[in-house]
């Protein structure tokens, strides 16, 4: 990492960090890093703070209530595009697949088990529930439907509370919806729904789906801390990626999931190294294509270590 001009001495930098993270499986990376002691071995004292969305995290980053927060990449880009002074300091989750048919991932589009919908193109003209419109999930669905030759603009998207996604499909209120893990796998196992397609964008495997961000001010004042933080989460990711047992253990103890829920769960992969401007561009291209962003941001402006 390149040091900012006149970087403060390491001793003056923040060591006690409050880090906002989602209370879902995508927030597992941070919990693993804590429980595996990666932070403490780097001299950091990290307290996880539950943040349900980036909307709650950003004001707290600005006010100094939080030092670092985890959020999905698209939301981060939206914040950035509105001029908020935040940057990516590390990758959290990565997209686990290239959107191959039938592959499980962190979330997926499901329909009722006996539904006529069986492929992405069948979604055209149907009512699909997403957590929110113009977000990453929504964008990815459109991307793979278009890639499969469908016209994604003809899908009727509705917003549904994440806890209700399965109910609404079973109920028939929506034709398909997008549960996240572990709800998706347990519902499929229960025979209620079937997987149509995961919510990964085609060809974007390894692209960061969620990132850790901090304010520019914090990054400038605490360059070493930021580096240490990134190193710690990458170290933890290396351990937990592919280690179902560890992942399940931390998910049970820190995120209150039950063993039954996690039985078939898919654990997403966490980033083990800093992202590249090329990967960032892959996402921002899609975001611009689907109108989430009006202008394509310069990847360098988004990353802390390119400053």
């Amino acid at each position, binding site marked *: 990492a390149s040091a900012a001009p006149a970087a403060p001495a390491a001793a003056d930098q923040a060591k006690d960090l409050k880090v906002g993270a989602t*209370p*879902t499986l995508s927030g597992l990376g941070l919990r693993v890093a804590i429980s595996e002691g990666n932070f403490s071995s780097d001299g950091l004292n990290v307290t996880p*703070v*539950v*943040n*349900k969305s980036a*909307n*709650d995290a*950003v*004001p*707290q980053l*600005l*006010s100094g*209530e*939080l030092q670092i927060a985890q959020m999905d990449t698209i939301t981060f880009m939206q914040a950035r595009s509105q001029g908020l002074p935040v940057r990516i300091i590390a990758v959290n989750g990565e997209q686990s697949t290239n959107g191959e048919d039938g592959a499980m991932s962190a979330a997926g589009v499901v329909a009722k088990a006996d539904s006529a919908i069986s492929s992405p193109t069948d979604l055209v003209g149907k009512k699909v529930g997403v957590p929110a419109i113009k977000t990453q999930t929504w964008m990815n669905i459109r991307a793979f439907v278009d890639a499969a030759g469908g016209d994604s603009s003809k899908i009727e998207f509705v917003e549904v509370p994440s*806890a209700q996604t*399965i*109910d609404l499909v*079973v*109920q028939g209120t929506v034709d398909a919806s997008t549960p996240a893990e*572990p*709800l998706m796998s*347990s519902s499929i196992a229960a025979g*209620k729904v079937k997987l149509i397609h995961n919510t990964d964008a085609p060809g974007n495997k390894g692209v960061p789906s969620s990132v850790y961000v901090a304010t520019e001010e914090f990054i400038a004042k605490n360059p070493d801390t930021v580096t240490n933080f990134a190193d710690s989460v990458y170290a933890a990711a290396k351990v937990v990626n592919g280690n179902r047992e560890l992942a399940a253990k931390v998910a049970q103890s820190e*995120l*209150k*999931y*039950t063993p039954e*829920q996690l039985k078939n769960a898919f654990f997403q992969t966490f980033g083990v190294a800093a992202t590249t401007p090329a990967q960032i561009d892959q996402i921002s291209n899609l975001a611009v294509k689907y109108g989430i962003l009006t202008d394509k941001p310069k990847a360098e402006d988004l990353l802390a270590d390119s400053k």
Partner: protein
Amino acid sequence: MSEMTPKSNTAVLAGARTKARKGGSAVAGRRRVGIGPKLIAIAGVLLLWQLLSVSPLVDSDSLPAPVTVFAALLGLWGTGAYWAALGTTLQVWAIGLALCAVIGVPAGLLIGVSMRATQSTRWVIDFFRTIPTIALLPLVLLLFGATSRMEITMIVLAAIWPLLIQSMYAAKQVEPLLKWVFRVFRISTMDRLRFLWAPSVTLLVSTGMRLAATMALLMTIAAEYIGGAPGLGLELSHMEQAFKRPEVFAYAITAGMIGLLINAALVLFQRRVLWWHPIIRGERSE
């Protein structure tokens, strides 16, 4: 003066008690409902719920059966997290509500008394009270973070309106002739507050208090739920994230029961204080 304040207060309350008992056809005449009908009503609803949850109308995972929910509740009662969350929520709720009362009631009465004040504040009140507190959450988070101060701010922003508005209307309901009596006998401002205003506005204000208490509770939980401050709402949110529907319902039922208890206490208070009011005297109406 100070010597008599508590005394005549007790006198009033003592009067309340004796009257409530020996008040002849007046108070005693109003037959109160025992616990029986209440239990029957509750049992009826539980039965309906149970039937609904096992019926093919709804998926049993969507609407867990009451037995499942109560089993979950019993399970939660065994955890320290439940009680800690309950304690935190109640504490924040109490502070928030107290603030609402301290600001809302006097302000509402003052605005209600004066025509000019009513006119002056009309636009402002109408404007601000339609702005949903939820929309202000990021701003409040920016100012206070996910702390109890954030919660209290949210509570006050949401729950002050019932008290303010009910107090405004209460102030306009004071019997004009009694106001004259107090003017004629040049009764001091303190006494005027105690012996004219307090009894006259109690009904409307205490109903405002019941509304505000519930809104404050809901707001506390909502703030914890969305904003991530510790308490019942956060626990509920955890359970929801973990897709533990019975526990979610168990927490919701906890909130419902708190509301029930708070309101029962407030109704009891109302009955105690308003024993003289036709509403409680309940003279034969039919």
